[in-house]
């Protein structure tokens, strides 16, 4: 029995902004000595793609800080999502916020275990070749095997 603390995370979201919390917390926990595991399910599986192409949207998110007020129907116009994503990435870079690729690499390097939900892979007919190497595939029971003994368990 190890005396290491354990952190279990469920990552369910696949947008650029929501991809940060799982990787920030996992990489930091690992640096603090936690044995860490992330279970990726539904849209969270987008975080495991070799080529990350995550977007951010202001739609349905009235708290998104905007450089100027934009009416909601304008926010739904073609190209707006791509523009907001590029603005967000630029802002993050200028503020010294790590890229997701870097945080994910640091997590892997720190031996954070990543488990992809097999059911979601089947449901959306994902090709496992598109996912990064070194991940495992499993279901709810696999998650509980680790989460049941965790000290901190987060649903993101």
């Amino acid at each position, binding site marked *: 029995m190890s005396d290491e603390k354990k952190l279990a995370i469920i990552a369910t979201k696949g947008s650029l902004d929501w991809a940060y919390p799982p990787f920030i917390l996992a990489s930091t926990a690992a*640096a603090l*000595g936690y044995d860490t595991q992330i279970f990726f399910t539904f849209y969270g599986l987008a975080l495991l793609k070799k080529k990350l192409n995550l977007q951010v949207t202001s739609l349905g998110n009235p708290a998104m800080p905007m450089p100027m007020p934009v009416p909601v129907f304008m926010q739904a116009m073609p190209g707006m999502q791509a523009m907001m994503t590029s603005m967000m990435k630029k802002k993050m870079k200028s503020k*010294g916020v*790590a890229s997701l690729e870097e945080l994910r690499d640091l997590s892997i390097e720190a031996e954070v275990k990543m488990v992809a939900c097999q059911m979601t892979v089947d449901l959306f007919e994902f090709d496992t070749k598109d996912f990064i190497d070194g991940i495992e595939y499993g279901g709810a029971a696999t998650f509980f095997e680790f989460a049941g003994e965790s000290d901190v368990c987060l649903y993101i």
Partner: protein
Amino acid sequence: MPDFAQELDASGLNCPLPILRAKKMLKGLETGQVLRIVATDPGSVKDFDAFANQTGNKLLESTEEGGKYLFFIEKK
């Protein structure tokens, strides 16, 4: 100011990068050796304190100097 074996310039980096980079550098040090860290993220003051408390590495000094934060951490 304590002597140090290595230095990490984490200027301009934001949470959690200063901690992650420091952890990586500490890995390469021997017990008792000191890492000097320079950071500009105001959140790092509390974070390095918390990092030291949780990992057992000793935070020898934490100071501010002209808008920069200096930390000296001794490897456990």
